[in-house]
């Protein structure tokens, strides 16, 4: 447990001092969403109809943008090698780094999302569900992404490869995330898509640290 805390604290401190990652991801999220009213036109009903989908797709791409750097710096400067040889198991290292990554990139997205929802003229009924669905969905995205980030470690053009590997795996989160918000807007119960999002989160929490750790071991050989 001390190992988990040590890595979490270090990653948060590094993110705080360097500061750029978090700001860039939120900026990308905002700009990507703002492009839609410009592209689709300012008609309020059209925007309201596509709002949940646009917000989720933009969130997905923002998470993807930040994932490449999840292990990259530590791999380049040799820290990852030493962490892999330190007493805490590599699965714990992965979990700590994913949690730090989510706190730095996922949480700011969730805070920015309601503001952008207003911009997209999304009906107010969906706000609570949007936040709840993002709270369940974005950690799952970070966890799935960690497996991909570990697999492409050390390869050139890793960013593009990562997108091809990971985006298809993001689809279930997208479907049920949008489903929950649209159900709430339409006045239907959102319980089922939320439970499924929760199930995806639970499954990725249980499986992805192992997968990512296996990928890292391969990269460190």
């Amino acid at each position, binding site marked *: 447990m*001390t*190992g988990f*805390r*040590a*890595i979490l604290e*270090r990653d948060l*401190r*590094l993110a705080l*001092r*360097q500061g750029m990652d978090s700001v860039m991801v939120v900026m990308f999220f905002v700009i990507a969403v703002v492009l839609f009213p410009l592209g689709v036109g300012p008609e309020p009903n059209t925007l309201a109809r596509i709002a949940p989908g646009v917000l989720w797709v933009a969130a997905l791409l923002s998470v993807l943008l930040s994932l490449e750097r999840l292990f990259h710096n530590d791999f*380049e*400067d*040799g*820290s990852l*090698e*030493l*962490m*892999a*040889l*330190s*007493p*805490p*198991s590599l699965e714990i290292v992965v979990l700590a780094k994913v949690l730090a990554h989510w706190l730095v990139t996922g949480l700011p997205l969730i805070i920015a999302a309601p503001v952008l929802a207003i911009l997209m003229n999304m009906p107010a009924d969906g706000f609570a569900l949007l936040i709840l669905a993002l709270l369940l969905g974005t950690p799952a995205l970070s966890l799935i992404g960690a497996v991909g980030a570990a697999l492409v470690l050390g390869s050139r053009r890793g960013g593009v490869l990562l997108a091809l590997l990971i985006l298809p795996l993001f689809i279930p989160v997208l479907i049920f995330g949008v489903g929950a918000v649209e159900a709430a807007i339409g006045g239907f119960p959102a319980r089922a898509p939320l439970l499924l999002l929760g199930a995806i989160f639970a499954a990725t929490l249980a499986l992805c640290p192992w997968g990512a750790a296996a990928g890292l071991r391969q990269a*460190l*050989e």
Partner: protein
Amino acid sequence: MDQFKGASLDCLRSTRPVFRGLDFDLPAGGALVLTGPNGSGKSSLLRLMAGLLPPAGGMLTWNGEPVAEDPDAHRARLAYLGHLDAVKPALTAAENLAFWAQLEGADPATAVGPALDALAIGHLADLPARFLSAGQKRRLNLARLGLGKAVLWLLDEPATALDVETIGRLCDLIQRHRDGGGMVAVSTHSDLDLKDAVNLDLGQYTVSAARAAAEETAA
């Protein structure tokens, strides 16, 4: 008394054989100096000893028990120093070291100061690591060795970028570690002054390209 042994170790990098049939024996208090030309597999052998790289053949044992059966215990007893210094430029020297202390399960409040002083970089403790020179970063990385209770030190070219005085300090550090029953395996091109060190020349185990090709066609 601890004993770290390797028996008939083979090493492959992807499909290229590096060395074959290598044996070593490292008793408590012992030092193994790995020498050999570039590409003879000194770094690979150290990574193999650390468990980063699985051996293609042969076995590593600790007190007679295969290392592969309990990797957690092996990680807890070793300290590895590679080519890269693993220093985060945004953190101060002391913060860098405190992180590794926490990972090793040592108390940063008491362990970091003495470890920095052992390599004479105590005065740099509060300086962000991006202002350190290559040699100072190396010393900061070496300071990790003084943190934990690791019995087995695996040092890959530890003397790189160090001045003569610091190389002396490093030798003292290694000697104190060995006096306490610790063991060390070190690869080097420069002469480290280690008492009663066993020299392992990897050149004699190297698989030459010609032989590898001949065996491949035979197989």
